[in-house]
């Protein structure tokens, strides 16, 4: 259904190229021939403790411009915690985050979001009292600037801004094929659609880094196929960098360019899917049997 031409959400394609230029130095070419850029986000020696529990122990890895990066590992390994660190919800006990070539100081989550990091959640975190459309519109809040007075009067700036952003949101909605539930309150939606709406909300923010926490949990194959298609398209067409956590090995192996494997807070593997799959530590800790 996507013919490729109408895919730029708000016509800001150049952004992707600009960033790419800045970090041209390194990068690699994937199997299917996509050019991966320089380092977008780098985590250095991250440690996270909760009281006595060490959830993450001295982990370093990077996420490169334009790639699909997967994090896998058994339950409780600290994967979600890692995403929480990236999106600023947890502050690491030790270690540094480097984003777009600069060290990121400790920040509030909303500030991180404004730097272009968007995410979905393991346990769906939609705004249940709002319609799908409103939920997706909240993804645009970081881009909307009209003041309170203008909003109260509505006519003028606030309305123009509303319409402009609505157009962008509608594109995302079309893209994810959820037009027909636009006005439905999300509370009534089945699980799979909720996940899709969550993705829409994250996409509406036009992020440069998209974090997906188990986007396909609780879906059947058919729906996983749909979701994969969306993820690939987002990556392809908008050049969004994606970091995802997923337990379905088929999905991970097929979609991702590089995989980090975690176990009990430690990193036990990092590399292209093929390589990871052969890693004995990974097989022992996670896969059980070689897939």
């Amino acid at each position: 259904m996507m013919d490729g031409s109408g895919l730029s959400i708000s016509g800001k394609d150049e952004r992707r190229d600009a960033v790419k230029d800045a970090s041209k130095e390194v990068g690699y070419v994937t199997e299917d021939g996509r050019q991966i850029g320089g380092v977008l986000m780098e985590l250095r020696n991250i440690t996270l403790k909760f009281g006595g529990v060490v959830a993450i122990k001295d982990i370093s890895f990077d996420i490169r411009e334009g790639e699909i990066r997967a994090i896998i590992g058994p339950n409780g390994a600290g994967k979600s915690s890692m995403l929480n660190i990236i999106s600023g919800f947890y502050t690491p006990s030790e270690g540094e985050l480097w984003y777009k070539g600069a060290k990121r100081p400790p920040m509030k989550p909303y500030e991180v979001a404004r730097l272009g990091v968007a995410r979905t959640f393991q346990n769906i975190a939609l705004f249940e009292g709002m319609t799908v459309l409103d939920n997706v519109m909240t993804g645009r809040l970081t881009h909307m600037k009209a003041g309170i007075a203008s909003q109260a009067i509505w006519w003028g700036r606030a309305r123009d801004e509303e319409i402009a952003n609505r157009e962008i949101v509608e594109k995302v909605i079309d893209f994810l094929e959820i037009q027909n539930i636009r006005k439905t309150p999300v509370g009534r939606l089945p699980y799979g659609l909720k996940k899709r709406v969550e993705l829409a909300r994250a996409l509406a923010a036009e992020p440069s880094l998209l974090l997906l926490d188990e986007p396909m949990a609780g879906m059947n194959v058919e729906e996983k196929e749909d979701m994969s298609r969306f993820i690939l398209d987002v990556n392809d067409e908008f050049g969004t960098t994606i970091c995802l956590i997923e337990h379905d090995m088929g999905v991970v192996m097929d979609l991702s360019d590089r995989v980090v494997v975690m176990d009990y807070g430690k990193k036990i593997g990092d590399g292209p899917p093929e390589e990871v799959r052969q890693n004995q530590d990974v097989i022992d800790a996670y896969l059980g049997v070689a897939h």
Partner: protein
Amino acid sequence: MLNDIFIQPFADMFAAPDFLLQVLWEGLVSGILYALIALGFVLIFRSSRIFNFAQGIMVVFAALTLVGLHAMGIPAWISVALTLAVMFVLAVSIERVVLRPLVGQPDIILFMATIGITLFLIGFGEIIFGGENKVMITEELGIPTDSVVLEPWGGLLILEQKDITAVVVAGLLVVALLLFLGKTRMGRAIRALGDDHQAALSVGISLQTIWVLVWFIAGIIALVTGIAWGARAGVSFALEVIAYKALPVLMLGGLESITGAIIGGLMIGMLEKLFEIYWGQPLMGGNTETWFAFVLALIVLLFRPQGLFGERIIERV
């Protein structure tokens, strides 16, 4: 000015230590009574996340029923038993009529419903018992009414025996409740229910039974509170306003904590009295007791958003 705030009050405390003791004792006694009401709240909150606004009116209702029954010529202890029966019926009806249809609704809706119950009971109670102030049947229940007069440092300290009784009874009640919640199967179920209705249902915990049980225990606590307060100030609907005092106690101690209710109650009772006597009356025109407890609790919450003993608020995504 600074002298009035920082030095004079303490000098006064030193100058009349017997008076200070009296202030603290009065604070302690009101604190215990606040704590008793708070206990009722805590119990219901733990088991259902219902913020039971009706606890205050239940106190009045229980006390009025007791006095009313006695006035009909029924012996005191039988009246107590009958009052308990009434409180049980009340618990059953509240569960049947109000709570059951509202299972699974947002907290605020249930909170509203308890305000509805409060209004209903006020109207109903006034029809049955009338609005006059009544005398609690303190002596008939065998509660000593004399006072103990001590003379520390040559001063004067008056302790009423009925207040001493209230303190002792409240202490016993707390210990019993703590054991019940912490150590028994029912106790665990009550706590589970508070976390997740649906899940509790799914493992076979019967909402009906537990809610009736919990509201009944809250009714018992209400009766004890009613007797204790009634002995001090008589029984009438005006008593209902003291229920508000339990709210800052809850905030300070934590909504789920029995220990918190007691310690919060004592702290608030004593501190508000100290503040009123040594700062409020001389410097601010008095009556600071209306808000002091709330402001104190608010300040504590800024540092511990779940109160001193409340359960940690779990924030995860």
